[in-house]
């Protein structure tokens, strides 16, 4: 059998021969295609690219100007240079002496969220959402996507709700992902080891519960880290899935250390939100 966590040497050799890694540079070609493509999304992308660059340059210039004007020696030097050019700086508003231009920080904004009412309009089944959550978790993001395994066929709607600790930064990994769909899971199943599955009962229906998470063994090539994951029971992730009234429900809790009982309690608390 193939040794674990390693590309087969024969295929690596053939791949390297036909497309040597040192000759692969996709970014310049992708950039070129972005500029030449007339598609609406591409135009949006270009617009965003230039808008981002413009905002960044403007912010840097404002920041530099603010720093220069805030330092007395720098201000005096600038004044001297301007006077040598035959001009004099005047202060039209004495009250603003020493004021420094404020610079808006660039922030990463979360993707647009929907209200539960908007979701219900796009979801042709009775929407049930958790009414009990542990700690100070609150609804952070909600949307509906069309879940499909094939781009050419219409999918079924899939509701995704995300709960995060109130006020936590975006890069805080602690969160709960709650999904409801008909048929397929939203975008495919989570990969969990069968040996860790625990049969549970949720709202009178059979369900599956798993506790723990994948941990990198740190031995792999950084570019193939996902091929080097080891299951770790001690990680604070938990997963619960069950079917109810023809719909598939799935809860994944990350780094919250939730117990089986707490996960089932969340599941049991699902109600119409209004």
């Amino acid at each position, binding site marked *: 059998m193939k040794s674990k966590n390693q*590309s087969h040497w024969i295929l690596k050799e053939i791949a390297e021969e036909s497309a040597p890694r040192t000759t692969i540079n996709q970014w310049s070609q992708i950039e070129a295609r972005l500029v030449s493509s007339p598609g609406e999304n591409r135009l949006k992308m270009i617009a965003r690219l230039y808008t981002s660059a413009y905002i960044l340059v403007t912010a840097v210039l404002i920041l530099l100007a603010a720093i220069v004007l805030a330092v007395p020696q720098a201000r005096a030097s600038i004044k001297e240079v301007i006077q040598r050019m035959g001009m004099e700086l005047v202060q039209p508003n004495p009250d603003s002496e020493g004021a420094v231009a404020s610079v808006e920080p660039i922030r990463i904004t979360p993707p647009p969220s929907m209200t539960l009412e908007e979701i219900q309009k796009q979801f042709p089944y009775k929407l049930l959402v958790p009414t009990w959550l542990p700690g100070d978790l609150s609804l952070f993001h909600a949307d509906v996507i069309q879940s499909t395994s094939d781009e050419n066929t219409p999918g079924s709607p899939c509701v995704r709700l995300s709960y995060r600790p109130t006020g936590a930064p975006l890069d805080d990994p602690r969160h709960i992902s709650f999904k409801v769909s008909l048929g397929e899971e939203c975008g495919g*199943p*989570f990969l969990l080891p069968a040996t860790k599955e625990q049969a549970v009962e949720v709202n009178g229906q059979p369900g599956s519960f798993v506790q723990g998470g994948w941990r990198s063994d740190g031995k792999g090539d950084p570019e193939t880290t996902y091929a080097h994951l080891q299951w770790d029971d001690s990680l604070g992730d938990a997963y619960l899935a069950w079917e109810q009234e023809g719909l598939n429900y799935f809860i994944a809790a990350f780094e919250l250390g939730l117990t089986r009982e707490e996960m089932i309690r969340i599941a049991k608390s699902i109600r119409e939100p209004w």
Partner: protein
Amino acid sequence: MDETKAVAQLKTGDITGLRTLVERYQVEAVQAACLITGDRAEAEDIVQTAFLRTFEKIARFDEARPFRPWFLRMVVNDAIKATTRQRRQISLEDGEDADYWAVLKRLDMTTREPEDFVQRKELLEEMQGALDRLSPAQRAAVVLHYFLDLSTAEAANQLNCAPGTLRWHLSVARERLRALLTAFK
């Protein structure tokens, strides 16, 4: 930059996130597509298109899941489609199952590189020939498991072949490859 941050940046429309992802995955994506299509230029085109679609579809991507399998799935599926189209044009039949199992057997049995240069070269040529005879789907199954090194469960996930609630994908490699092949067909 961290991959999660790159995805988050891309979701806000920041192009630097896409650049990070391109730099991280371009090599294995192009090489995998090349193994399936047998055509470097086509492989490059497939991967570029997949990255552009990544930007367009990133809003639908669940950041709780790893990016790599999601992205490679697009690349592999596109490579299969492109190769199938190409094969129809030159009227070649799909590879026989016997060829497929021969390739698997050979890969399973030659886990170590021979020290002898000639023997090594012969092995590579033999495998290249055998891969050429496989159908695009068969080649994709081999590439998913033996080159991209996706576990059998991850490879199954590439095909979205598990409806219903959680399905538990664990089986021996050959059974899974057989299932993958069926799903591709």
